[in-house]
């Protein structure tokens, strides 16, 4: 096959309507930037999934972070994505305007130097992410222990993708195939999806983020569905970064420092075993991450939860672009750079 043949196949597809979920927000962003939606048949619908960790984090988590940022001798470190997400009464950005100490980090390792230089200040990290990011927090704890740094805490909203995908397979019958999240797959490996694909008989394929990667994976999924063969193995179309077994060093670090527990996903509810929490032996670094399951009641018109599971497209929400915009967001899907609503809004 060459790329022209792939594009022609996807444009001319005229079978039953297919709903393919791109699980990861970075894929959603790339699909919009490259104009892929306009290059394929209207019968292939691309559904954005729950793969933006910021979008699925409940408001009680933001509230906990703000509480730390308002405390004397504490600084809250966060990735930029989180700063405008609304908590119960304000966002981290708004709290900062009222005197909270909130700093943007680009890497969790920045905390080490800050904590060493300022031993009287406790640095609290808003540790949000999936399997891609969790091992990095494990390394951070390892480095802090090695260097004798005690003034670091993690408030974790670390989640694993497979339990959420299982929830979607069990509860959202209308998804015909999945584009697996590329950089989560780097850590967990393409084989990790095999059991789900086999049990629910839906194809899963791993893809990178270039437009060519996405066209290839769409072709692969549509072709697999058209062939009507039993789903057996996972097709890996991101071979440059993803191994069948994943990155064993990263998995080892992850399991050394973290254990599984229940976690709240906006739109999906509490999913057992989908959260990652510091083990008891590292409790000195724990900032109170468990049990943050309360979500602010959003306005009745806000359909963030339905967007996250792909039940509706963002522009089907009555608040989209009117009551809810990136500068004045209600739901986190509109806030995050990888949230489906924000991506749709910026590319409409």
């Amino acid at each position, binding site marked *: *096959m*060459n*790329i022209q043949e*792939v594009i022609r196949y996807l444009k001319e597809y005229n079978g039953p309507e297919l709903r393919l979920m791109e699980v*990861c*927000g*970075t894929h959603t962003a790339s699909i919009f930037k490259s104009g892929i939606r306009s290059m394929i048949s209207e019968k292939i619908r691309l559904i954005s999934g729950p*793969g*933006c*960790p*910021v979008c699925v984090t409940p408001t009680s988590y933001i509230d906990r972070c703000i509480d730390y940022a308002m405390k004397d001798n504490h600084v809250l470190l966060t*990735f930029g*994505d989180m700063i405008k997400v609304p908590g119960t009464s304000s966002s981290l950005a708004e709290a900062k305007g009222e005197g909270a100490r909130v700093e943007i980090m*680009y*890497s*969790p*390792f*920045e905390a080490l130097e800050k904590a060493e230089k300022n031993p009287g200040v406790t640095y609290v990290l808003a540790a*949000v*992410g*999936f399997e*891609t*990011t969790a*091992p*990095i927090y494990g*390394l951070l704890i*390892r480095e802090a222990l090695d260097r004798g740094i005690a003034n670091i805490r993690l408030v974790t909203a670390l989640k694993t993708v497979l339990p959420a995908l299982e929830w979607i397979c069990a509860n959202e019958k209308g998804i015909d195939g999945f584009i697996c*999240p*590329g*950089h*989560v797959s*780097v*850590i967990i490996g393409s084989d990790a999806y095999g059991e789900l694909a086999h049990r629910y008989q839906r194809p899963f394929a791993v893809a*990178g983020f*270039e437009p*060519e*990667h996405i066209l*290839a994976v769409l*072709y*692969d999924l549509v*072709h697999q569905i058209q*062939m009507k063969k039993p789903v057996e193995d996972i097709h890996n*179309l991101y*071979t*440059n*970064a*993803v191994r069948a077994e994943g*990155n064993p*060093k*990263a998995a080892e*670090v992850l399991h050394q420092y973290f254990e599984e527990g229940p976690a709240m996903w906006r739109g999906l509810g509490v999913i057992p075993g989908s959260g990652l929490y510091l083990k008891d032996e590292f409790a000195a670094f724990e900032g109170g991450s468990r049990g943050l399951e309360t979500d602010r009641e959003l306005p009745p018109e806000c359909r963030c939860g339905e967007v996250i599971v792909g039940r509706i497209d963002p522009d089907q929400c009555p608040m989209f672009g009117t009551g809810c915009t990136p500068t004045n967001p209600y739901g986190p899907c509109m806030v*995050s750079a*990888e949230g489906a609503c924000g991506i749709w809004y910026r590319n409409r």
Partner: protein
Amino acid sequence: MCIAMPGKIVAVEGNKAKVDFKGTLVDVHVGLIDAKVGDYALVHAGCAIEVMEKEKALELMEIFEGLEE
């Protein structure tokens, strides 16, 4: 959130490496990979999460060749 960028490893010292992103040198933790000077590493949030072995063009060519007809 899970964005990662490939860069070339130009120096390694223990768990730390200097990685070249189109001319900009960045300090990167390499505790999750076996880092060697000259390799391309996929970097997320200041940490290398995997070694990339092939040129991008070669990878894409292999992917398209591998698609079933």
